[in-house]
C-alpha cells in the first residue's frame, strides 16, 4: 500500500514540476474543441443536431484523458532508459503494487488534465445539464484515464525505446478516438463500423461521460461504468504479469 502511495506521489511531483510542458499538451484538445466546435457548430445546428459544443465537450474531455493517460503510461519507457525502473523493479514489493502505483499516478495526472479542459469548456460556453451528476462525470473521467494509463503502462513494459510511440499513437490511439463517438454520433455510420465501435472501450467512457454531463442518466451509465471497471481490472492484471517478466 505504501509502495503504491509513494509511486503515485512521485508522478504527481513530476507532473507539478513539469506543469508548463504538461499544460502545453492541452493545446491539442483545446484546438480540437475550438476549431471543431466553432467550425462545425453551425452545420450541426442546421442539421438539427442542437448545440455542437454541448455534444463534443464530453468527447474532448475524454480525449484529454485518453492522450494524457497514454503519455503518462509511456513514461515507463523513459524510466527504463534512464535506469530508474531498475531501482523500482529490484525492490521487494509486489508487481501488482508497482503496476497499480504507476497507473494511479498517471491516471491522476490525466484526470487533472481532463478537469482543466472541462474548465476551458465551461469558459467557451459548455453547460453541464445537471450539477448533481458532476461527481459521477468525474468518476467516468477518472476511469477513462485509469484504463488507458494502465493500457499504456502495460504496453510500455514491453518496449525498449520511444520509437514505437508514434506507431502506437497513429494505429491504436487515433482509431480508438475517432471510433468512440467523441466527435460525431456513430449510430448513422455503416453497420460494420458501428459494430467495431462497440468493441472500443473508449466508446463506453465517452458515452458515460456524455450521459452524466449532458443527458438524463439512464441505466446505460451503469453498464458503461461496469465495462470500464472490469477492463481496468483486467489490464492491471495483465500489466502486473508483464512487469514480473520485465528484464532491465
Amino acid at each position: 500500500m505504501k509502495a503504491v502511495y509513494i509511486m503515485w506521489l512521485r508522478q504527481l511531483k513530476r507532473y507539478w514540476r513539469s506543469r508548463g510542458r504538461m499544460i502545453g499538451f492541452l493545446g491539442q484538445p483545446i484546438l480540437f474543441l475550438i476549431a471543431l466546435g466553432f467550425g462545425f457548430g453551425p452545420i450541426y445546428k442546421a442539421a438539427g443536431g442542437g448545440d455542437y459544443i454541448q455534444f463534443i465537450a464530453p468527447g474532448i474531455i475524454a480525449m484529454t484523458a485518453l492522450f494524457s493517460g497514454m503519455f503518462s503510461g509511456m513514461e515507463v519507457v523513459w524510466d527504463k532508459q534512464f535506469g530508474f525502473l531498475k531501482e523500482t523493479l529490484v525492490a521487494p514489493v509486489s508487481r501488482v503494487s508497482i503496476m497499480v502505483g504507476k497507473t494511479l499516478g498517471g491516471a491522476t495526472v490525466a484526470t487533472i488534465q481532463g478537469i482543466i479542459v472541462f474548465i476551458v469548456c465551461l469558459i467557451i460556453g459548455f453547460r453541464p445539464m445537471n450539477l448533481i451528476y458532476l461527481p459521477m462525470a468525474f468518476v467516468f473521467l477518472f476511469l477513462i484515464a485509469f484504463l488507458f494509463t494502465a493500457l499504456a503502462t502495460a504496453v510500455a513494459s514491453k518496449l525498449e525505446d520511444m520509437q514505437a510511440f508514434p506507431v502506437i499513437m497513429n494505429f491504436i490511439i487515433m482509431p480508438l478516438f475517432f471510433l468512440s463517438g467523441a466527435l460525431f454520433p456513430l449510430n448513422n455510420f455503416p453497420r460494420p463500423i458501428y459494430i467495431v465501435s462497440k468493441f472500443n472501450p473508449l466508446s463506453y467512457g465517452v458515452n458515460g461521460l456524455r450521459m452524466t454531463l449532458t443527458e438524463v442518466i439512464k441505466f446505460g451509465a451503469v453498464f458503461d461504468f461496469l465495462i470500464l471497471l472490469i477492463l481496468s481490472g483486467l489490464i492491471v492484471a495483465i500489466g502486473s504479469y508483464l512487469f514480473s517478466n520485465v528484464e532491465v
Partner: protein
Amino acid sequence: MNKEKIIEVKSLSKKFDSFTAVDNISFEVEKGSVFAFLGPNGAGKTTTIRMLTTLLKPTKGSIKVNGFDPVSEKNNVRNSFGIVFQDPSLDNELTAYENLVFHSVLYHVPKEMRKERIDSMIKFVGLFDRKDDYIKTFSGGMKRRLEIARGLIHHPKILFLDEPTLGLDPQTRNHVWNYIKELNKKERMTVFFTTHYMEEAEKMADRIAIIDHGKIVKIGTGKELKKETKTDSLEMAFLKLTGHEIRDDESTTKKERMRITGKMWGTR
C-alpha cells in the same frame, strides 16, 4: 569447509541471442564475507549480478541467494539484498532527499526510522546541504555518492556493489569502504562487488573471482592468486590471467544509443 554459503551458483550461463555473455560459471560466497568479481570490460560481471538480483533470467544453471531461487522465489530474494548499480538509476526530477524517501518506502524502512537513516546516510556522503536539490543539478560524482547512500539506507543481508567507487575521489572511496567494512563486520552483511581498482579488491575482498569472456578463470584469496600466477601484485596476476589486449566494449553501445534517443525526445 562447512561455512554457511549465502550465494551458490552452479553452471550458470546467459546467452543473448547467439552470444554467450556468461558461460557456465560456478562459485559460492560465504555468509559474512566480502567477495570481489574482477574482469575486463564486457567479461560478464554485470550480467551475472543482474541474474543474481532477479533482473535477468538465466539461460541455464541454478542460483541460490540467501537460500532462494531468483527465478521462482523472486520476492524472497529481493528481500535479502541491496544493490548499487553500475549505471545511473536515480530520478533526475526528484531531489536527493526524495529519491532516498522513495527507496526507504519501497524497502519497508519503518517510518520512525526513515528520517534518521536518510539524514545520517546523506550526511555520510557529504550531501546534506544539497539534499533538497534536484538530481539533475548534481555532478557525476555526487550522483554516485547518492546512489551509494541509497544502497546503504536499509541494511540488507547481502549488498551488491557494481563498480561502486567508479568516478569517486580517493577520499570518498576510502570513506565509503570503511563504512561498508564496518557494516560487514558488525552486521555480518555479505558484500559482493565488482571493480576495476585492483588495490580495492586486494584490500577489501576475502575472496576474488577473475572472470573473462564469461568464464571464471580463477577464484581464491588475493594471496593465492598471486602465488598461483607467480606474480607479486594483483594487477600483474590479473593481466597474466586475462591477457593484455583491450576489449572492444560491445556492452556500452546499445545502452548509450538508448540514452541518446531518450535525449532526442527531450523530456528530461
